[in-house]
């Protein structure tokens, strides 16, 4: 994770539901105080330092809720990951730095493994894939979109090389 990496920064902007353990002046709308016990959504970069200092409790954000996890366990290829967050894998990685949740890590790894096969197949024939399986392609998160693009480009580069010879 590099300081200058744009995707890491976007992932750090993802919202996390938190409960305030103390009242926090300036955190609310137009700089109002948010009182102890209130629920707020904070970007990860703030939630993380707050949690480390015990100013908030963090809750599992919606992309990693049990509903999504169960759907992913049942069939990862039918879940529109992008509807949960544009940076599913980045976000999971950052979250795992601060929460202990081995089952989340397992779900994420299995999801990636299984969806990558579908992505590899789709990238070989993107036109056909978009026609037949558009909801899957549309539902890719940003990292999966990169994978799709990479698989498509390396396939295309080789095809072009073979043709020109």
């Amino acid at each position: 994770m590099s300081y200058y990496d744009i995707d890491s920064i976007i992932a750090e902007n993802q919202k996390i539901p938190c409960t305030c353990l103390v009242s926090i002046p300036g955190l609310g709308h137009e700089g109002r105080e948010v009182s102890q016990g209130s629920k707020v959504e904070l970007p990860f970069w703030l939630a993380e330092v707050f949690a480390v200092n015990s100013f908030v409790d963090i809750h599992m954000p919606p992309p990693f809720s049990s509903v999504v996890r169960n759907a992913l366990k049942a069939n990862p290829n039918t879940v529109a990951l992008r509807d949960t967050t544009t940076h599913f894998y980045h976000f999971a990685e950052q979250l795992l730095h601060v929460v202990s949740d081995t089952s989340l890590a397992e779900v994420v790894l299995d999801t990636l493994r299984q969806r990558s096969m579908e992505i590899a197949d789709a990238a070989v024939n993107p036109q056909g894939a978009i026609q037949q399986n558009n909801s899957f392609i549309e539902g890719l998160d940003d990292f999966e979109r990169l994978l799709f693009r990479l698989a498509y480009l390396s396939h295309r580069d080789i095809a072009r090389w073979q043709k020109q010879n």
Partner: protein
Amino acid sequence: MENGLGNHSNKLIHDSKRTLYLDYLPPYQTDAVADVVREIRAVDREASAVLSHLTENGTVTFQPEEHPSEAASLLMLHATNLHNKRCLMAYHNLRLGRIRQYCWDGGKKMEASLKTALSPTEREYLSRYSELLAAYKGPWTDVDLTGSTVPPKDLFIDVRVLEDVGEIETEYGTINLTKNSQLHVRTTDVERLIRQGYLVKL
């Protein structure tokens, strides 16, 4: 965030995300950068005010445990500014990389966008970096470091001139490139012009 902090820097990051996939440089976000800088200063002033209140203008030491709410507030302001600075750095760093790429590889679309896209400090960077690159290239004239990074294939090719270029110096004499003419030339002498769209390979 609800309090609006970090919104300006998000704008820069979204512009950066777009830039990643463009082959030209979009205009420098002068206003957005100024907004982020202004926010950083305002946040810093606020933090100083809170701190000087808590320490009674520096006469007593601030005990975070005794004032958890104020400590949280200060931490929020501090974290906001670190985040803001990171966005500024990432935004500018990405653009510098693009400017360097242009210095090495050229590119017509990139060149066109540079006329309007650069900030004054970016223009200064471009000219200083060009000088630095020329100095680094100097001792390596035999291999022409800004030459093609595509493996050499056909040493001699036929080209057609799309736009007047005029006379160019080559390793083995000068050649004149006038619009619509066709020539049998050494690939290495013209590949930069092909990349820039002045010539087309037949």
